[in-house]
């Protein structure tokens, strides 16, 4: 067992699962958030059709992440979920309504406006709740002897509200750049128009959170203003990709805005990780404190290493099958 550190491997797997979830369900949820602002019902059809074939595969990563945490880092599972109790409920309720709306909107006409509402509110609430989780993670959790001891609403502070709104804007940005990629005509024009605005909101929140973070968490302050200067490369690259988004929108490129937005996410995410590393339940527990027994980590690792490549191939294949533009009045019903 000394040959390799299973906890590090598992941190890699869970970390990969989280970013996969954020990116892939991010644009689905983003389109849900943008739903009420769409120019017309045709645009809504196209928006929904562009993600209909893939959304439930995207949610795969959330369930895998939840179960994987229980198996590999049970302390995260048993502190985050009680601490975020009400928020977790809101997120799940949002995701359920969003999912049901996906299925039944296509099959309805008279009741369609209800499913539109369920889709939008479900997406918005789930996105906000996930952003709050990010904020709560930066804030840290009140714990004693491996048990959460804080209150019911510790997760709801001005800081986490900002991160919640920030992730909503960020998901909307993923959604609008995805729509640029998948649509054409007046719908694409609309997506081009709103993208810089959303990017602006994201950057403002990015700045607020960056300035605020060192004040809510001392460890983070020392990390960023300590000796390790190299980590500044992450926010720098995130900003560079933000610039790429803006430029490619100006040039009316179709796939670059989405890809560059992914770049923003990846480097922001890495920046977030290095802020806290190796703390996994800040401020008290490292990922080794949070780990399950090595034999348990190994037992599950075998199955996961077998199935993740299959899920990836299947996912890639699905995206390949549904590549290209979604047009008004056609596509999936």
């Amino acid at each position, binding site marked *: 067992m000394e040959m390799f550190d299973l906890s590090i491997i598992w941190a890699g797997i869970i970390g990969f699962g989280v970013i996969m979830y954020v990116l892939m369900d991010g644009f689905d949820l983003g389109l849900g958030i943008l739903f009420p602002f769409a120019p017309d019902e045709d645009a809504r059809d196209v928006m929904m059709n562009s993600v209909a074939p893939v959304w439930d595969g995207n949610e795969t990563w959330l369930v895998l992440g939840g179960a994987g945490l229980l198996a590999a880092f049970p302390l995260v599972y048993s502190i985050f979920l009680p601490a975020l109790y009400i928020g977790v*409920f809101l997120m799940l309720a949002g995701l359920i309504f969003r*999912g049901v709306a996906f299925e039944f909107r296509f099959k309805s006409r008279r009741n369609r406006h209800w499913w539109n509402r369920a889709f939008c509110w479900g997406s918005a609430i789930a996105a906000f709740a996930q952003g709050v989780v990010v904020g709560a993670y930066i804030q840290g959790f009140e714990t004693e002897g491996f048990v*959460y001891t804080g209150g019911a609403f510790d997760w709801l502070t001005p800081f986490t509200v900002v991160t919640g709104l920030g992730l909503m804007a960020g998901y909307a940005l993923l959604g609008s750049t995805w729509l640029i990629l998948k649509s054409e005509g007046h719908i694409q024009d609309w997506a081009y128009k709103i993208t810089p605005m959303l990017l602006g909101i994201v950057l403002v929140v990015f700045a607020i959170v960056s300035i605020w973070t060192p004040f809510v968490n001392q460890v983070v302050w020392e990390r960023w203003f300590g000796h390790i200067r190299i980590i500044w490369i992450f926010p720098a690259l995130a900003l560079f990709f933000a610039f790429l988004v803006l430029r490619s929108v100006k040039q009316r490129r179709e796939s670059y805005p989405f890809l560059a937005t992914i770049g923003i996410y990846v480097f922001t995410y890495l920046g977030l990780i290095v802020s806290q590393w190796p703390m996994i339940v800040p401020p008290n527990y490292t990922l080794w404190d949070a780990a399950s027994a090595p034999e*348990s980590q190994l037992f599950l690792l075998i199955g996961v290493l077998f199935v993740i490549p299959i899920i990836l191939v299947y996912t890639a294949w699905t995206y390949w099958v549904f590549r290209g533009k979604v047009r008004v009045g056609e596509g999936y019903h």
Partner: protein
Amino acid sequence: MELDPLMLSRIQFAFVVCFHAIFPVFTIGLASYIALLQGLFFKTQNPAWDRLALFWTKVFAVVFGMGVVSGIVMSFQFGTNWSNFSLAASNFIGPMLSYEVVTAFFLEAAFLGILLFGRGKVPQGIHLLAATMVAIGTFISAFWILSANSWMHTPAGVELIDNRFHVTSWSDAIFNPSFPYRFMHMAMASFITGGFVVAGVSAWFLMRGRDPEANRRALSMCLWLLLFLTPAQAVIGDFHGLNTLEHQPTKVAAMEGHWETATNVPLLLFAIPDQEAQENRFAIGIPNLASLILTHSLDGEIPGISEAVPEEQPPVMIVFWAFRVMVGIGLLMIATAFAGLLLRRKGRIYESRLFLKTLVGMVSLPFIAVLAGWVVTESGRAPWLVYGIMTHAEGVTPSLTGWMALFTLIGYMLVYAVVFYAGIYYILRVVRNGMLPEHAQASADRDADRPKRPLSAAHTPFDDDVDPVRS
């Protein structure tokens, strides 16, 4: 009144898990039935089997989708409400639940798409293989969940170090003493549930004279299966009960409403157990029968509930009556299956309206029996979460307050009420639309061309104004 987070968490878990369990218990049985239909079609090339398979695959798709949606909540419940238990048992429970997820996703990625959307596009043999793999996969999923659950009843293969269970033997832990019985009992319950639903729906179609050829085949086949499955379930249930008597005698005593250890114990048909007084009111029983069933001897001794101190006793009223509901429905199902045999000899299973109506009415009963069975085994374990080692009170989330638990309990009830209403409404529409006429079958093949989400395999619209259902 003080809100008790422990009681509310137990109610919430029971509610969420019961709601969820309805769907897999049906899909497990139905998946095997679809594989059987596909196999018959492959062998005989009779299009009736093919039409039945297509119809039931559509129903399967919707029920599977509902199961996935309600299952997402399950994977978070352990952490939100039972965090102490989750942390303590994570070394075993974590990998079990994760393997269930892994199995389910592997299935979905590899075979479900082919089963739902590959019809007419992949060779028949491959389609049959996909159907078989999905059927096997549902059992593998159930395997992990039931292993984890059984371990909580009969923990084995672990040692407790610093309040955490560490696995010392994976095979002992996975194949813990109650697991084989629980798995068999549940697998059989799934088959019977699937059988009664298919029989009931076929009977409904026959009463309306729709697709008589295919529905007669389906009905006849189901009644043959149920004729063997329902008595077999009684035998398996008996073995499961004997296993429980060995490992959890208090639970069996509660099932029998049997308070004091004694010999010559009667089988109670009716009683109002009084936990305060530690005795029954209005008891009516058959002398010596409980002793005979449980010890296979008329004067066998059975330990009573009072062997456990009152604080360690399960809620007897609930366990006692839930058990009677389960067994009562079980007996009714056996009787129905035998009535089918008698009517068959007179050649009347397809015509007797009373019999067909009975079958339609019985569609919901296996679900109630399954839930009642789970109430027996889970309530019967109380106050233990991990039997003999950790109580519910020790496992609950310490930071949880009563109003938090109440808020989410009401919340989940509201969410599920909406989802369940929409889902059941839609399943009924799919069923009422029935099988496609033969000439439309080919176009349905062309139409179902995209490997996607389960629900999109059902093409039935949600509203009447899109496409009214066929009556």
